[in-house]
């Protein structure tokens, strides 16, 4: 598999893997995941995960196995990268999956010359997870003898078929042992029918930008405070009418609601002149979008916030609305944001009036929510 299209980065975040599925209802793109020294991705189309992938060293995980691995971490660090339709189509092609929304007629048997290359069992191609040195929560590899799929079990096909064969899930998805200390992780699901895993050719994960330096402080769940790992439902494979197409997509249940918070923050981040965005509180950075040094930015923001907090009670003007600190190279803007604080790093060219309007709207919305 070749590297996936880069897409447009919306920023890095830290959250439980379950948070991704429930907050990306309108998102189309790839979520690049970095865990320890490994990298992976979740290809998403409007909240529907199309493909899970993770690679650490020579170990590769796909589908449910990768999802289980993501879920085995209370919080993962990831970068939301938006795709346009062409990029999505290309990424899906690279992942060897087809659009689940596409209606594929249940055609009769295809005639012509058969070109069926049996897929080798996954044991040889997809080793189990190697426990990272620093992570005690990752299960030890489990080696299971997998039966080699035989063509005779397949429905009879005559004529030419250019479809790539898929092996039964049992042969392709090495189970991941459940970490003993984590009770909230769902058990690996044994899928009773073929599961799409791309095993042909060298498998290379999508490019994950490592320019971003994850903060050294302990990672914490962001806005999705209420989302806990234990609430992650077991992945469900929805019965699909056409196994040649539909079974390629691992489809956990999607959450119908959209998180306006992420949408709003992404919209702000996308404004011209916004370099980085952070949501922080006294103890931690909740959300960071942008490639700037998050610790340095939040440190400055906390200093500003400290000033605002000391001043506000001495002035009879009501609550602090926002503060902009302008230096020759740009602006740092802070404002209260729900129970946290919002920090924006901007260029000097930005329209401060526009930012003020946005911040006022945020504050009003926050006050309204508190009242209700």
């Amino acid at each position, binding site marked *: 598999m070749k590297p996936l299209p880069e897409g447009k980065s919306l920023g890095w975040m830290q959250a439980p893997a379950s948070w991704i599925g429930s907050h990306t209802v309108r998102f189309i793109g790839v979520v690049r995941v970095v865990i320890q020294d490994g990298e992976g991705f979740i290809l998403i189309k409007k909240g529907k995960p199309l493909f899970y992938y993770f690679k650490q060293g020579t170990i590769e995980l796909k589908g449910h196995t990768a999802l289980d691995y993501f879920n085995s971490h209370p919080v993962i660090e990831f970068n939301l990268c938006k795709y346009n339709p062409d990029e999505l189509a290309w990424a899906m092609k690279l992942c060897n999956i087809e659009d689940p929304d596409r209606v594929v007629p249940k055609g009769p048997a295809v005639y012509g010359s058969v070109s069926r290359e049996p897929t080798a069992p996954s044991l040889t191609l997809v080793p189990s997870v190697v426990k990272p040195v620093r992570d005690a929560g990752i299960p030890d590899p489990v080696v299971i003898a997998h039966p080699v799929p035989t063509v005779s079990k397949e429905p009879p096909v005559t004529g030419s078929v250019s479809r790539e064969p898929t092996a039964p899930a049992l042969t392709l998805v090495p189970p991941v042992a459940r970490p003993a200390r984590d009770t909230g992780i769902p058990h690996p699901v044994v899928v009773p029918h073929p599961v799409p895993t791309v095993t042909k050719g060298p498998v290379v994960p999508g490019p994950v930008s490592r320019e971003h330096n994850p903060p050294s402080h302990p990672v914490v769940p962001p806005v999705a405070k209420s989302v806990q790992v234990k609430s992650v439902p077991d992945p469900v494979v929805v019965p699909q009418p056409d196994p040649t197409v539909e079974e390629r997509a691992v489809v956990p249940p999607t959450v119908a609601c959209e998180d306006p918070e992420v949408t709003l923050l992404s919209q702000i981040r996308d404004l011209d002149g916004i370099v980085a965005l952070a949501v922080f509180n006294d103890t931690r950075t909740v959300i960071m979008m942008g490639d700037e040094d998050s610790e340095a930015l939040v440190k400055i923001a906390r200093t500003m916030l400290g000033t605002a907090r000391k001043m506000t009670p001495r002035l009879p003007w009501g609550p602090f609305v926002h503060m902009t*600190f302008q230096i020759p190279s740009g602006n740092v803007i802070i404002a209260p944001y729900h129970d946290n604080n919002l920090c924006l790093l901007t260029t000097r060219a930005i329209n401060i009036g526009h930012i003020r309007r946005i911040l006022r709207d945020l504050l009003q919305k926050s006050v309204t929510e508190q009242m209700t």
Partner: protein
Amino acid sequence: MLKEILNKFLILHDVRGVIVVREDGGIVESIKSGMEYNDAFMAAVSTFMVGSKATADTFGNSPAFMVFMEFPDYFLLLAPLKEAFFLLVIAQNTANIGQINQAMKKNREDLVALL
């Protein structure tokens, strides 16, 4: 003479106070209209200056900085004049920031000359 220049700011729509202040919070000159410079306010100004300086220090080399701080009905605009001297404008949110900035550009040299 300094007050005359500060008055050019005070006559702008909904500007309520203008202060020339040192970076340590010390007041050099001030005028006001429709508000009181009580002890609490002066303490807040001092905190504003010290806190802003501390923030500037985190950028390194203490760059020239400008600070805009907004409350529901009022805002503070702090602009550098010369080395450790700043101009602080207190205005209602209905004031025109563009006008204030323009007045700063026009009168900055005169203000600096008097410091």
